């Protein structure tokens, strides 16, 4: 797994949006070796606020079934008005219709829980490292 740890990633920021503290903890633990900074949001509303308020996020992981605002409605809102960062859905859901909806709303991938830590690291690293550098002002 060490060869998956990218260089110069200490400042990369990942937002983890999930109403389960345990899942946020699992994700934080899985990504610990990457050096990414993890920011947490506890539901879709909190996630949307952080997506819009934290200006230098590099990526987000997002649950689907959450109180207040579900993940699919949240990413649709982000697509209308939000940062253009990769979003990876992390959920127990697996209906093709939901996966299609996420893709059409701009999500970059879909993981069915429970996740394998090494595969999560590989997917997150790929999306973060492939992201084009933000345009200079």
């Amino acid at each position, binding site marked *: 797994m060490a060869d998956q740890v990218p260089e110069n990633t200490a400042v990369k920021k990942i937002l983890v949006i999930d*109403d*389960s*503290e*345990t*899942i946020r*903890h*699992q994700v934080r*633990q899985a990504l610990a070796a990457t050096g990414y900074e993890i920011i947490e949001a506890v539901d879709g509303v909190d996630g949307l606020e952080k997506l819009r308020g934290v200006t230098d996020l590099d990526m987000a992981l997002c649950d689907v*079934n*959450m*109180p207040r605002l*579900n993940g699919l409605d949240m990413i649709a809102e982000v697509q209308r008005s939000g940062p253009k960062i990769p979003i990876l859905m992390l*959920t*127990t*859901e*697996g*209906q*093709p*219709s939901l*996966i*299609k909806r996420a*893709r059409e709303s701009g*999500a*970059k*991938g*879909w*993981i*069915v*829980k*429970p*996740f*394998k830590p090494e*595969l*999560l690291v590989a*997917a997150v690293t*790929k*999306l973060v490292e492939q992201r084009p550098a933000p345009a200079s002002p």
Partner: protein
Amino acid sequence: MDTAATTAAAELFAAYGVAIAQVVGPGIQLPVPDLAALGIARFSAPSLLGTAVVGASTGTLRRSNARGTSDLDWIAELANQYIGRFKLKLLRAGFELWSLAPGRVTGRLLVTAVSQPQYSPIFFRDPKGGSVAVWIEMEIKSPLKITPPAAGEGEIPHEGDIILF
């Protein structure tokens, strides 16, 4: 549907390192006083409303969650993952369910369930004496429609799968 409900629970706990085995017949011990927490997931389909309740004893819960987060948080997530597995199994058989964010209550609120011994849960024991119980209740208003997924709708993923678009 019974097979899906039973297998989903065994697979779920196995994924978190706890082997549970179903207990049937007289081996079921009711009431189940040692259930520490209950996770609740509601689900629906056309003509159907349902609720799945997953209960686990403290020892089983903590053996399946080494991270030390709260039992209530974890049982809600287990209920969420349980209904996810149940739904995926039914989806592969052509029946689609929809669910909402899970809820949770402490085991002391189980009194309603244990006071009705004729309504038996799907009951499991782990090798260390812990227990897991699953209740599924459904209201079906008209005959259910089984529709195999149409070609072109995309494959149904398995737990742990990662799909990058």
